[in-house]
């Protein structure tokens, strides 16, 4: 290994990168776009979900219950409707997501003390929002029921010797009290960008040489295989780390999200993760002959698992067992856990050591296998 040669190669690689505007797009602008889109928010809780009311009973009771929905803050009025057709039309146009239907005898039955029902129709085409809406709607009706009981007794002159609600809930959201999407997305953006940098770029640059036939030239040059690979990879490791720092800085300066734990530990995990993704990139480039193929394969082994199987968006707890098992082989999973731990929970190695161990094992075995493959080829 001659460091001078590697240095020259690194310089050459950086010149190529600097000349190419499309790199800048992906390296610096894409993470910022992702941050801005998510930073200014995708809400994961519902607020003012547009609700129409079809009130066939026109009674004080129905108005009172409808009022409770609007007062909860989860639902807002999108006007009145008269008929299922109209409700469906409003759903189809996206003007309403929830509809309350009070039957004609809603008020009179309640007044007589008989059992009655209110229909709650939910547009289920976005099932996430619908799930939240159903939970809150049920809660509101239950609370209304309790209120009715108390009111009824008060009318009869009975004062309850206790306060209602008998039991109340204090929902505390840890690490992210306002359920802000920026806190959810920051670790995710880091994983995605570093995967792209690590695997895609590495695979691209090496397969590019292969496809252009410059790979053989290297074999004929005094550069050894290891020197060549090191020279090609180091720039991307550096860029990946710069990117990580950039995202963390943007998160802090634009959105006031500090790193709750140690930055050094964050850096350490990033380094581990980059090593693993580089290993994957090398592996991809060792088995692909065309850029198109390399790109598709890189997408399959990195972006897909780092977005879908890492727990970034979809909770691993919900996966079926075989997929859950696969996630243990997914470096993105450990990195996401580590990032969330360090970034949001502020925990240290005493809790995150298994993640560090697994990442190191994955990285070491991948790099080992692929370097061996390359060594044989370039020897």
């Amino acid at each position, binding site marked *: 290994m001659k460091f001078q040669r590697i240095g020259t190669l690194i310089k050459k690689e950086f010149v190529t990168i600097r000349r190419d505007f499309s790199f800048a797009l992906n390296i610096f602008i894409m993470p910022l776009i992702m941050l801005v889109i998510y930073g200014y928010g995708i809400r994961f809780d519902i607020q003012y979900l547009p609700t129409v009311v079809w009130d066939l009973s026109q009674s004080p009771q129905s108005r009172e219950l409808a009022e409770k929905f609007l007062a909860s803050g989860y639902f807002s009025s999108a006007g009145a409707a008269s008929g299922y057709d109209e409700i469906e039309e409003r759903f189809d146009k996206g003007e309403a997501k929830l509809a309350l239907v009070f039957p004609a005898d809603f008020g009179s039955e309640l007044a007589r003390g008989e059992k009655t029902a209110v229909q709650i129709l939910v547009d289920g085409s976005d099932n996430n929002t619908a799930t939240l809406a159903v939970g809150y709607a049920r809660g509101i009706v239950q609370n209304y029921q309790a209120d009715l009981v108390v009111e009824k007794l008060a009318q009869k002159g009975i004062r309850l010797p206790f306060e209602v609600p008998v039991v109340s809930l204090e929902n505390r959201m840890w690490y992210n009290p306002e359920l802000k999407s920026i806190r959810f997305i920051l670790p995710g953006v880091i994983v995605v960008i570093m995967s792209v940098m690590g695997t895609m770029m590495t695979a691209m640059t090496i397969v590019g040489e292969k496809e252009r036939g410059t790979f053989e030239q290297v074999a004929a040059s005094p550069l050894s295989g290891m020197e060549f690979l090191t020279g090609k990879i180091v720039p991307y490791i550096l860029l990946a780390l710069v990117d990580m720092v950039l995202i963390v800085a943007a998160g802090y300066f634009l959105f006031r999200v500090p790193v709750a734990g140690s930055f050094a530990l964050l850096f350490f995990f990033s380094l581990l993760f980059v090593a693993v993704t580089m290993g994957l990139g090398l592996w991809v480039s060792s088995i692909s002959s065309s850029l*198109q193929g390399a790109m*598709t394969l890189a997408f399959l082994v990195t972006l897909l698992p780092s977005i879908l199987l890492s727990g970034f968006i979809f909770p691993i707890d919900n996966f079926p067992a075989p997929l859950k098992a696969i996630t243990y082989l997914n470096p993105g999973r450990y990195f996401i856990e580590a990032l969330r731990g360090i970034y949001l929970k502020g925990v240290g190695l005493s809790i995150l050591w298994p993640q560090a161990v697994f990442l190191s094992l994955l990285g070491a075995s991948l790099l080992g296998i692929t370097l061996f493959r390359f060594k044989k080829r370039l020897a």
Partner: protein
Amino acid sequence: MEAAWKESAGRVRQVVKKEVIQILRDRKFLVLVLVTPVLQTVIFGYVANVDVTDIPTVVCDLDRTNQSRELADRFLQSGFFSAAGRIDDPREADRWLDGGKAKVVLVIPPDYSRAVAGKKGAAIQVLTDATNSNVAGIAGSYASAIVAAANVDLLLARLHKIGIRAQETVLVEPEVRVWYNPELKSVNFMVPGMLCVILLTATMNLTGISMVREKERGTAEQLSVTPVRSWELVLAKVLPFVGIGFINMVFILFLGIFWFGVPLAGSLGLLFALSGIFIFTSLGLGVLISTVAATQQQAMMMAQFFMVPNMLLSGFMFPIANMPVAIQYVTYLVPLRYYVEIVRRIFMKGAGLGELWNQLVPLAVFGIVAVGLASLRFRKVQK
């Protein structure tokens, strides 16, 4: 005129043949292109499960009475929360949530049973790991519904105890009906969206790269001295990928409908017809990228750069209605948005052409602009 058309069609056919041979020869690539979408759909179908159930929950019951156990059971038997352990000290909640071994900690205060029988009432705490805002929101709404139901039961029981029989006097039953997706299954929402994203990747990225390859290898010049006209060349390069796009679509639809049981409420014919328009748009974008990019690597990076806003802002994963208003306006600039809307409406609501034209028009406009720009630029590049 007719003869000219025939000649032209003949030339296109020849180039298409060459392209198809080239694609078929690269077996690895072909397998990847055909298998990736299938894998993606399968993984997505299983993974994209936000029907949050069995959230690992730790119970910290400081009261340890029948009443407190009953309340804990309401949580654990709801199907939404499942027992991950028990703790006796609320300070241990840190350890469980920090380590990620539990997502929710239910804290029942030591005076719970006295409080629910007393004057003031009790307050219980639900601590939720909100690092995944999505799951946390859902857990919160479940918890509030469970506690509201507990409240009613406790109230009625207390009234009963003091001799007031309120059970029969009042009852409002919430009759919840979820339209379009009665079981609230997330596959029903995700698979149609997935179809759109995969189709965009398959058509835009691959065309962009395939066009640039010709440029990079210098074979573009060779083609320019042949009698093939530039628009014929574009058409011929694009056609095989239209084919791949439709094959991918058939695979995904097959998996979605038969494997995951996603109901298709609308017309399959309409779905294919409108997908044709989308493919036209995304191929236009692919060709446009190819005229700007000098190398395959660049083309790939630009395509990827373009994919990100398309995925984030199309409503494919996160509903547009939940975005801030300013960003909602930006989504109108994203072609995938219209297609996602079209596919979801056909799938879930059984929409017909009459209800879809307001999505179709902007999509087609995008397509015409993209193809127009692409062919203008392409001609210039050729000269």
